[in-house]
């Protein structure tokens, strides 16, 4: 058996990394340099606030032109993907919702829709494609949007995911701004990253909209490699995290989600990954939280830290792990990864309030919310 560090990372007798590079390069997509209209996720910032709050900060250090419209009067809404995939709303409602969001972007002078949610990416892409598939649909939606809210819209020029943006600028981030790299500070070993690309990023429109295609998507593993880490390929790499709106919204089906995560964990464990990288809010939630559930169910403690691409960027940029990146919101502790990289942190500052205030009630909250606090506090909830 080869030493662990030799897996997947260079041409070996088991794995041909060069061929893998050639495969994803068949599917290059155009990502604009600048001019992004951001559409936030409705769940990402709830579970991992840093992942989304860091977006303006990161785009600003790159001096990029971006905008969003979070004014209350703009009523920037969710894409309604949860309702659409949960079969509680019609495609017309979804088309109307995206048309309105596009009109907000166009009002602000932007042609590129940059969404931070993978479900939204799928929704916007699907709606965009429908206009090209169905003659007369644009005229119909023009009329409906005007009747609904008095707005006009045009099809955006680009629909991208914010992970596309970070991929586009990954080398500049590394060369000009990053303090740390994905390298073990003691041994110099490149850290092993498992990518988990959200299904609605690379499986709905694998040829046209997934950077690197459906099978060997590059949008996250490209970040791992650019930032000196090593990409790990493993058999269940493409398996869904198990979120699925029908599972996560229906309590009796929730076991399916844990089973899916467990399947992935069992498969990736022999490759000894140092972290999992995601670009989907749902995947981030379930890959992180279900590791705690798996420990509760069968006692197996994987506890492989799960990060969004934005959180990983923030950590390597040297931003405060708690105050800015928000790793304290993770169920699986991220601190062991920080130790490997050599990123300093002060755990006593994990749960401070505004302006560094001490929150007397935080321990009580953490104890009362198992998935958020139990693993972190090293306790088992009975």
């Amino acid at each position, binding site marked *: *058996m*080869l030493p*662990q560090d030799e*897996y997947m990372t260079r041409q*070996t*007798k*088991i*794995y*041909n990394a060069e*061929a*893998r590079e*050639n*495969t994803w390069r068949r599917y290059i997509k155009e990502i604009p340099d600048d001019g992004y209209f951001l559409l936030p996720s409705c769940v990402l910032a709830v579970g991992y606030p840093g992942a989304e709050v860091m977006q303006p900060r990161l785009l600003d250090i790159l001096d990029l032109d971006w905008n969003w419209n979070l004014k209350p009067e703009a009523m920037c809404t969710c894409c309604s993907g949860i309702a659409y995939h949960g079969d509680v709303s019609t495609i017309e409602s979804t088309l109307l919702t995206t048309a309105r969001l596009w009109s907000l972007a166009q009002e602000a002078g932007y042609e590129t829709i940059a969404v931070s949610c993978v479900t939204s990416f799928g929704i916007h892409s699907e709606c965009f494609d429908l206009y090209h598939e169905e003659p007369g649909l644009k005229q119909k939606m023009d009329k409906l949007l005007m009747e609904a809210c008095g707005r006009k819209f045009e099809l955006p020029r680009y629909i991208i995911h914010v992970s596309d943006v970070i991929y586009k600028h990954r080398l500049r981030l590394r060369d000009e701004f990053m303090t740390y790299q994905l390298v073990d500070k003691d041994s110099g070993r490149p850290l092993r990253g498992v990518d988990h690309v959200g299904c609605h990023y690379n499986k709905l429109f694998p040829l046209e909209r997934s950077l690197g*295609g*459906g*099978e*060997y998507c590059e949008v996250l593993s490209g970040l791992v490699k650019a930032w000196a880490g090593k990409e790990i*390929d*493993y*058999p*269940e*790499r*493409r398996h869904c995290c198990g979120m699925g709106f029908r599972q996560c919204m229906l309590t009796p089906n929730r076991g399916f989600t844990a089973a899916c995560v467990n399947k992935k964990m069992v*498969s990736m464990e*022999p*490759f000894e990954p140092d972290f999992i990288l995601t670009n989907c809010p749902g995947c981030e939630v379930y890959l992180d939280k279900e590791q705690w559930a798996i420990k509760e169910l069968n006692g197996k403690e994987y506890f492989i830290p799960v990060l969004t691409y934005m959180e990983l960027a923030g950590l390597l940029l040297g931003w405060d792990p708690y105050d800015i990146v928000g790793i304290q919101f993770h169920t699986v502790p991220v601190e062991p990864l920080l130790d490997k990289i050599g990123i300093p942190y002060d755990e006593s500052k994990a749960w401070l309030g505004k302006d560094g205030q001490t929150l007397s009630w935080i321990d009580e909250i953490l104890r009362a919310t198992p998935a958020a606090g139990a693993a972190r506090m090293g306790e088992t909830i009975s």
Partner: protein
Amino acid sequence: MSRKVIILGGGVAGMQAAIALNDLGTESILVEKEPELGGRVKNYDKIFPFFQSGKELVKDLEKRVRGAHLVEIKLGTTVTHVEGQPPHFQVRLDTGNYEISAGAIVVATGFEPFDASLQEEYGYGIYQNVITATELESLLDPEGPTNGELRRPSDGKIAQRIAIVFCVGSRNEKLGHNYCSRICCSFSTKQAIEIKKKYPDARIVCFYIDIRTYGRGFEEMYRQAQEAGVNYIRGRVAECGVLPNGDITIRVEDTFLGKPMQGVFDLVSLSHGMTPCLDAPKIATMLGIRLAEDGFFDCMDKELYANDATEDGIFLAGAAIGMKPIPDCIADSNAVAARVAAFFAKMPKETE
């Protein structure tokens, strides 16, 4: 008018066409771009369904074609230019600054194996223990790189758990290959039997969509494989993965049981389909004939004149018009010789 025939391609179809024309008293020039005759069959240790030697078949054909006094062989040569109307073709080769007068042209340019790396879910080219049926044939060849031992590429270990994935690059709308390549089921079944003969304890699982063993002796060979203990599971493999020791995982649905399943194998062979030869579009343009939707050369009439190209005086043999087993290629070539003879016979005397 010249009664000489130019034959493009020196594989089994091209050689047999030359032999058949010679038997009919017609001169031909056999043009082969490679430095030796035999096309792809010269690399096959065994051919189906009767386990004869492909190499011996080629040697036999070559001996006969070289002994045919009306056949001129030009190896390492390509036709670069053709002009004129039948039966007054002027043909130029890349090996000489002169033109050859020909009354007819036979296209026997064969096929190209499907590039299995394009069916990306199987990881061919990336996972070293995922190989193609052509590579498996080479491993099973006593004169091959492993002297006929089934040693997997990653570590030289003798493979005991072998998966064979059928229909790779065939019957696949996503890849634009809707057609069945016709020979792969039998080719891979033949290989499974060979493995079982050499390694009786080996576990071989063939994953298939349908088994299409339609020719004489083919179905019997399929039965022989099952009786030897080769497992056939109906289900299209969804993806392959690799484990740290190089073993390959397979995910598939058994469509008889209606259940998904997974397996771990030492070696995976992709029973790849075939595509038209890479030069087909260039040759079609040069000769002014059409390609069909599947990329193979189109026929004058698919029912009545399957060996006639879409222009007079140009004939088609072997895999140039779609995949077929060797006996069918040989039959094609004999048919082409008859069509050429008929074409020459109906030429008005004044054109001579």
